[in-house]
């Protein structure tokens, strides 16, 4: 005969009332899933925000009037767009006080011809003056980007050395970028000469009229000199040249603050739901454990009569709730992982803010925090009921039961 231990008693108790055990585990699983999911989502958005801060590079982006939101959409969400700016604006902007450096870029959207020719953003950079993209693509390629060469974002399926075709012209992939969680993941970078060629190809295919000169640009990225206020310089650019060149500006601080604020709002909703579910879980567990312990008074009293101490009864109740909590925590984390990780691309697209899955260490710490929350809530709720029960004398408990 096997010796009777606390674990065997707990095991038989759990299997004797399977529906109650499953129900309690499900409540804890819900709590854990909410906490784990919330932590992963918020840390993914915060990581995306960090990348945005690192990758933005320029203080001000000058675009044609009316294209501010399209430029933001291209950077943040990779929404492909094509727009052009009067090329004379580049020199004019460079002359504005407080502008330390100004570099042109060209934005061209590829065609959407059904499902598998997904429109992509082609971004042309000027390797001689660029201070935004070049610093973080130089690690990915050897030397500067030559004509006809491209560097692709992490979500574009093309290996280094392979070729991609846009507007019937073939480009050679010479590098792949790391995952950024931003629109750059679905963008393709090329030098400005190649981008001008692509812009003309795009115009020809879509029957648009495009000025045939060498100074084609879409935006001017501005680095503000030290000691100058970024917003003041942006206003100076608009005051001096907005009317002449139809300019609008995207101030990176403003864009960063907008994204940061929407992430903060989203995170606060998540926290609110987590707290609500935690409170609800503790209340449900309190009620269920209270009812259960009440209905098992005779059983626990018998343990006392045959020699179990108050401490042993207390630890027995705690162990049972601990086992339920651990089972619930594992189920909750597994179920939420099954939702969050496979659907991360869909979540990232629907949220619309930079979204980058956290590192393994962060995921493991989220697992630890979720399990800890379950272990605190479950046994914590049962400890209150157990303490109330064990405070009574065995004689009075037996009399109540009889």
């Amino acid at each position: 005969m096997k010796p009777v231990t606390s674990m065997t008693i707990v095991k038989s108790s759990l299997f004797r009332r399977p529906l109650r055990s499953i129900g309690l585990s499900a409540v804890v699983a819900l709590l854990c899933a909410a906490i784990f999911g919330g932590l992963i989502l918020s840390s993914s958005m915060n990581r995306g925000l960090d990348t945005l801060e690192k990758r933005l590079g320029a203080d001000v982006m000058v675009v044609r009037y009316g294209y501010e939101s399209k430029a933001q959409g291209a950077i943040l969400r990779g929404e492909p767009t094509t727009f052009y700016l009067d090329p004379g604006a580049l020199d004019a902007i460079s002359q504005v006080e407080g502008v330390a450096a100004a570099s042109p870029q060209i934005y061209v959207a590829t065609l959407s011809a059904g499902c598998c020719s997904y429109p992509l953003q082609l971004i042309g950079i000027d390797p001689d003056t660029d201070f935004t993209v070049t610093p973080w693509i130089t690690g990915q390629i050897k030397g500067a980007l030559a004509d006809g060469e491209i560097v692709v974002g992490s979500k574009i399926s093309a290996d280094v050395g392979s070729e991609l075709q846009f507007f019937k012209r073939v480009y050679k992939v010479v590098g792949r970028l790391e995952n950024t969680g931003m629109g750059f993941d679905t963008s393709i970078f090329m030098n400005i000469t190649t981008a001008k060629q692509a812009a003309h190809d795009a115009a020809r295919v879509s029957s648009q009229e495009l000025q045939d000169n060498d100074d084609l640009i879409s935006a001017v990225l501005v680095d503000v000199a030290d000691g100058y206020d970024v917003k003041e310089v942006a206003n100076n650019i608009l005051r001096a040249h907005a009317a002449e060149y139809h300019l609008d500006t995207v101030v990176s601080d403003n864009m960063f603050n907008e994204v940061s604020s929407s992430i903060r709002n989203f995170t606060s909703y998540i926290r609110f739901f987590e707290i609500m579910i935690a409170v609800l879980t503790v209340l449900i567990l309190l009620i269920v454990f209270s009812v259960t312990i009440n209905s098992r008074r005779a059983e626990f009293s018998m343990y006392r009569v045959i020699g179990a101490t108050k401490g042993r009864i207390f630890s027995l109740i705690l162990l049972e709730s601990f086992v339920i909590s651990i089972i619930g925590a594992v189920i909750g984390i597994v179920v939420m992982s099954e939702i969050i990780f496979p659907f991360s691309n869909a979540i990232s697209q629907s949220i619309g803010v930079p979204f980058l899955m956290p590192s393994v260490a962060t995921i493991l710490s989220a697992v630890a925090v979720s399990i800890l929350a379950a272990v605190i809530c479950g046994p914590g709720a049962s400890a209150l009921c157990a303490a109330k029960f064990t405070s009574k004398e065995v004689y009075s408990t037996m009399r109540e039961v009889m």
Partner: protein
Amino acid sequence: MDLKKIIPAAVMMIFGILLIAAGLFILPPCDHLIETANGGGVPMKCHWSVVADAVLGGIILCGGIMSLFVKRDTASGIFMAMIPVCIAGILIPACIIGGCSMPTMKCRALTFPALYVLNTLCGMGAVICFVLTKKKEERR
């Protein structure tokens, strides 16, 4: 009929129906056709991945129904056979047939993840059903 035999069978049948419905009706991939040289159109490979998974869903559904009418030990064998079927259900969209290249495509962002999740859960369900029916057989 034995309730303990109906529940595992029902679980498998539900997963079978979900696997058929998920790819074909609930979260279908885009219905774009690839134009052929003669001007006709053929569905893309993500479509065929979903069809293949739906067939596997049909096998799981049939397995669930069959487990109702056989002895417990035979039913446990049926549940065991479901495990490689679920693994195939994951491998078909992941690598055997595959889908569109871009992770942002509908098939890669929604349809395939749903099939991975369902096949994983179905596989876990099959393991539990197998263990339960096997255990009961040994007890008997």
